């Protein structure tokens, strides 16, 4: 009798296991947008990322394989421990299948580990550190939008090739700034340029005039800003104020369109920068961005656009795989070539890097800009394999 019961239970378990392998677990596909809803990254990601994920779900008719698609969001406050707790709750009780966005890479790194254990997918869009592709890389993770190396490499290579050989760095004194500085330095040296000085400033900073004066005294061709957000905005504004941007090229290594929007074109004009996405690039990006604008009254940043693309392609991969089982979905994503309103010629690599074409942009002058958010001239399309970093040997998924 007992044996029969156990056998029945085992059969049932076996059945349950089989049902997970094909079809949709929990009868729902849930996308979790884990982002910064209230802090320093809430403009470049935040609510706009949530809207973007919902737009992707709507595009699929809020259904995949006949099951409903839901989008949930939470504020991780840029803290890895908060992010980890929220993710655990989402995976264990919330039926969440995939988590995206992750401004500040440390939150992505914390959640990637948990997702791997729970067999769920992570798709960082605003989490940009290359550490995500290194030692801690995960087979169930895709760094969808871009990373610090690709951003730095695009701008640095273009400027060195233009003959701007000497560089001075103003670097935010924490991991992110250091890695941006290191990645750019590598590319500058490879292309025959030279770094003549570095100032590392405490984060966050209000006043950059001291560093700018030092950079000016160095007579470097380029003053590279290895920082982000308000630090970049203040540094750019003050460079214009002290008349520095007239004689030397100021190159911010990580700039979102929301930053340029708050600097104003008067201060930002002429700067080179690299981005994964610019809304006014082609018909597809314009059409999608206008829809986004109608909902938020702002044009999407690359991070927000990346959340849309990640969610959309994740759902498409489920459809193609016929299941939401994480390894099967990831395998499908690796087979696909990603082309949508945001990403062009994207191929997902084994280490989790989505290698795709990037845009080298130059900020327009106030006279060139015809309308609000008309901010960039597209100078070049940079081939993915030229700007994305080579796979790191430290990542166990990389075959040597």
């Amino acid at each position, binding site marked *: 009798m007992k044996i029969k019961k156990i056998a029945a239970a085992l059969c049932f378990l076996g059945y349950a296991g089989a049902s997970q392998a094909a079809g949709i677990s929990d009868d729902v596909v849930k996308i979790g947008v884990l982002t910064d809803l209230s802090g320093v*990254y809430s403009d470049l990601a935040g609510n706009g990322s949530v809207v973007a994920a919902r737009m992707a779900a709507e595009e699929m008719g809020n259904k995949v394989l006949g099951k409903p698609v839901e989008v949930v969001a939470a504020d991780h406050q840029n803290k890895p421990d908060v992010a980890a707790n929220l993710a655990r709750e989402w995976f264990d009780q919330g039926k969440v299948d995939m988590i995206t966005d992750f401004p500040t890479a440390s939150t992505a790194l914390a959640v990637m580990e948990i997702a791997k254990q729970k067999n769920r997918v992570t798709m960082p869009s605003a989490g940009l550190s290359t550490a995500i592709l290194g030692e801690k890389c995960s087979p169930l993770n895709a760094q969808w939008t871009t990373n610090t190396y690709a951003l730095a490499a695009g701008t640095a290579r273009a400027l060195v090739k233009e003959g701007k050989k000497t560089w001075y760095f103003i670097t935010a004194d924490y991991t992110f700034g250091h890695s941006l500085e290191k990645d750019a330095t590598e590319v500058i040296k490879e292309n025959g340029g030279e770094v003549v000085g570095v100032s590392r*400033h*405490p984060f966050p900073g209000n006043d950059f005039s001291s560093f700018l*004066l030092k950079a000016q005294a160095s007579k470097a061709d380029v003053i590279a800003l290895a920082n982000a957000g*308000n630090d970049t905005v203040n540094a750019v*504004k003050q460079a214009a104020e002290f008349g520095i941007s007239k004689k030397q090229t100021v190159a911010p290594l990580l700039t979102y369109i929301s*930053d340029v929007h708050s600097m104003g074109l008067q201060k930002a004009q002429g700067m080179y920068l690299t981005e994964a996405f610019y809304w006014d690039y082609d018909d597809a990006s314009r059409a999608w961005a206008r829809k986004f604008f109608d909902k938020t009254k702002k044009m999407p940043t690359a991070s927000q656009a990346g959340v849309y693309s990640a969610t959309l392609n994740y759902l498409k991969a489920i459809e193609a795989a016929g299941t939401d089982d994480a390894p099967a979905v990831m395998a499908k994503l690796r087979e696909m070539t990603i082309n949508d309103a945001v990403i062009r010629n994207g191929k997902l690599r084994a280490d989790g890097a989505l290698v795709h074409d990037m845009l080298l942009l130059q900020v327009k002058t106030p006279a060139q800009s015809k309308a609000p958010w008309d901010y960039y001239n597209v100078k070049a399309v940079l081939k993915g394999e030229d700007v994305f970093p080579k796979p790191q040997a430290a990542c166990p998924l990389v075959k040597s």
Partner: protein
Amino acid sequence: MFDISYQSLLAQLLVGLINGCFYAILSMGLAIIFGLLNIVNFTHGAQFMMAAFLAWIGFTQLPQWLGESVQINFWVALLLAPVIVGGVGIVIERTLLKRLYHLDHLYGLLLTFGIALMMEGGFRYFYGISGVGYEPPELLQGGFDLDFMYLPGYRAFVVVASLSICLLTWYLFERTRLGAMLRAGTENPRLLQAFGVNVPVMITLTYGFGVALAGVAGVLAAPVMQINPLMGSNLLNIVFAVVVIGGLGSIMGAIVTGLALGLLEGLTKVFYPEASTVVVFVVMAVVLLVRPAGLFGKEK
């Protein structure tokens, strides 16, 4: 590390002095408030931020709301914004702070900190975290080509304006009859009341004045730094250190220390930038060890 020319050293000192001016005005307001109210005003940074936003709203938003003719320029904002911020301060003092005077300092600190968080949250909700930009007034655009550096005209104005405000305030508090009463209120409010002075009103106005100083600093800072909801709280840590070093409640202490620490910070940025925010707190620790009442404070 020390291979720096005399000229660029001069430039760095000047830049340090400009920052010192902001420290001086802000810490002076804090010192005045603490002197009379015994309140550590943690709302100071948010009030500084609010004034900067008001200047921006007056210049860019009002014309959109009320028509092109209604535009508050920088000069009017420099007067109007501190008055509004000071007025809001007075309301806060009358309705909330005055209930806490008989309690420990800590309660005032917590209350003002909470108000600061709410103000920052409110501005973030409406204007986002990236903030907005504000151009210097036309009269002060451009700059002077000094031999050793290019000095933006607006920054030169900031130095002159802040030093004048500091000296005027010092004169008001230390050399006039009104100032004498205020100082008497700090020493012994009950005795002063016995002489027929309306001490509660005096306290309210003093709080309003201290907050208005934060407002002046906020409008002055608007064209220099990005206006965003957190601009004040980023500065406030340093400003508190300035007040502690100068001596809680000492006006001259706040002015001199503010300027001196601006210079010291500027020098640190030249020689070892990584330490530029720490250096202020190192000085604070040393001063607290050697003179617990601060450089200009009186031991009680």
